[in-house]
């Protein structure tokens, strides 16, 4: 449905997007996620036709978009600040794309009603945008983007301005409508949670470069580089060195500890690595307990935060060069609670520790230096 091949865009000396290649299948919900300034919005604007790539090409439905102006593309877009037309009612906003795209005037009122009903806004059709709540304005913007049956729907962080509860409701609402209509969708966000909740596929961007594209579960389970590991999920990192390697497992020394990590990366013995471990994969327990997993280090609780459904610990591990590991305990009801300054033992399975080649890997920018410190 959408093919993006080697697309680059340079502003002055800054490469906002470098050599981006990705594709979106018909009916898919793809999310481009990354920190602000990673190039995701630039990419979206080029797809919408508000900006042109300096190199590479964009094809939608097999047609090259180079010479197709924005107003001739069959794309609906929901803008970050919604960009509703302030002088038009909800119904007029939704009718606007139909008028501009020269739909049969007799069909317009019916379509407007259908789509306002789809976003559950039928009774507010005669209100102006400023007479609607944030969530209602959002729904008008969705209806306006979808009413003419676009080939592609673009979402430019439309949920970022909403409060948390409304945002989570709208995430599900977007997903419901998207699946009901089966419209191919590209969503842009900096919110990893939103990306995981809503998407069929996720593209992680950083420094204008696509870091990884995968389905949400695979992305979470098998990050391909330290940036993705850190950006998606709560991951602690610390440096180490490979001492032995088999296809199944890697042995790493980190500080005074010898650890087993997931194999398969062909790092080579002696290679410097960055180790990554997710907070929910670490088991916290007393130092005198029976060993449960291949890897065990001793630490001291530095911080404990109770979030209701989970307990969040920050544990300093002197044996890992003083690295601080984030730990989630998902059963604060039946598990012991450890207080600040209390000595504990952290354990995790070899398959959960990922060793990445250290230093600037080809696709990763260096500004995110591995520190092995608290990462949330």
């Amino acid at each position: 449905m959408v093919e993006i091949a080697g697309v680059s865009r340079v502003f002055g000396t800054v490469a906002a997007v470098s050599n981006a290649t990705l594709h979106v299948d018909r009916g898919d919900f793809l999310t481009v996620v990354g920190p602000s300034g990673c190039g995701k919005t630039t990419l979206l604007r080029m797809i919408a036709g508000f900006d042109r790539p300096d190199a590479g090409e964009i094809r939608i439905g097999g047609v090259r978009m180079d010479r197709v102006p924005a107003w001739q593309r069959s794309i609906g877009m929901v803008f970050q600040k919604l960009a509703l037309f302030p002088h038009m009612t909800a119904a007029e906003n939704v009718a606007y794309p139909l008028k501009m795209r020269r739909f049969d005037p007799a069909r317009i009122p019916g379509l407007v009603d259908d789509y306002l009903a789809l976003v559950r806004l039928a009774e507010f059709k005669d209100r102006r945008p400023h007479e609607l709540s944030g969530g209602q304005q959002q729904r008008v913007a969705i209806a306006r983007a979808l009413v003419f049956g676009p080939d592609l729907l673009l979402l430019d962080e439309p949920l970022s301005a909403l409060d948390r509860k409304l945002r989570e409701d709208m995430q599900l609402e977007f997903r419901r409508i998207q699946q009901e209509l089966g419209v191919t969708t590209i969503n842009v966000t900096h919110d990893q949670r939103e990306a995981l909740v809503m998407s069929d596929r996720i593209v992680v961007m950083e420094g204008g470069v696509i870091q990884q594209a995968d389905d949400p579960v695979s992305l979470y389970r098998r990050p391909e580089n330290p940036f993705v590991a850190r950006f998606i999920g709560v991951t602690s990192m610390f440096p180490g060195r490979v001492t032995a390697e088999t296809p199944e497992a890697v042995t790493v020394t980190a500080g005074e500890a010898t650890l087993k990590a997931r194999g398969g990366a062909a790092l080579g013995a002696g290679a410097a690595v960055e180790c990554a471990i997710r907070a929910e994969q670490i088991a916290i327990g007393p130092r005198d307990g029976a060993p449960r997993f291949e890897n065990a280090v001793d630490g001291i609780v530095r911080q404990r935060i109770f979030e209701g459904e989970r307990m969040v610990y920050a544990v300093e591990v002197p044996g890992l060069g003083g690295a601080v590991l984030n730990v989630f305990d998902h059963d604060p009801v039946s598990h012991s609670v450890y207080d600040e300054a209390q000595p504990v033992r952290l354990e995790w399975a070899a398959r959960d520790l990922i060793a990445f080649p250290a230093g600037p890997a080809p696709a990763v920018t260096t500004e995110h230096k591995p520190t092995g410190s608290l990462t949330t």
Partner: protein
Amino acid sequence: MRGSLSKRIAIWGLVWVSLITLSLPTLIVIGASFTAGEIIRFPPEGFSLRWYGELWQLDSFKAALARTFYVSAICTAVSLPVGTLAAIATVRYRIRFRNAVQVYLLLPFTIPLVVSGISMMIFFGEIRILGQLWPVGVALCIINLPFMIWSVSASVNAIDPEIENAAMNCGAPPLQTFLTVTLPAVMPGVITGGLLMFILAFNEFLVSLFLTDSRTVTLPVQIYNSIRSVITPDLAAVSVLYIAIALIAVFLLDRLVGLDIFLRSK
């Protein structure tokens, strides 16, 4: 308000003093215009519409009033497209020499009206249009244009810069985008600015003094001429006319834009 009694008295006292000093001259002139006597005085002697009647009999007044409407209409008609496009262009688009253009457009405001009046008199004389009425309207447009530009700029600044992209995304080509989205969205500023330009032109005295002669004299200049001879209550009646026109403008502003929006100066 929870403040002490003395604080409330002080604040309300200040409010009332301000309101009275602001409105008293107006109220006095309205009262004086209804006098039945021969001279302007307050309180008026008796009550009559005599001076309104006399004013209406005066052909010189009626002609000057008509000319003032004509001049103000020209001023407004020129300033609407010029001011609107200039404001949208300088605020919204990254045009070349944007700052220079902005300064240039606001320049008339920094020049004393006497200087503007003299220079336009000389210039209009050179190109042989001095003595006609329409150039007066153009001149008033030039000196007051900053007000129009400010008014529209405020509206342009208040709208989401993405709405034009949104319109294009909806399938509107650039001209359609401008006509159906940009222009209506800045309309409050355009209407406010247009009314302002009309009122300013209607009141303008100094530049008109340089550019008019006895055949093209406008109402403010006519009033000036008549107070140099003898001050009669018909001048109070003219003043009331001015007050009425200002009120009509405020009324129109409320109906067309909404005073709440104007007062919040969004």
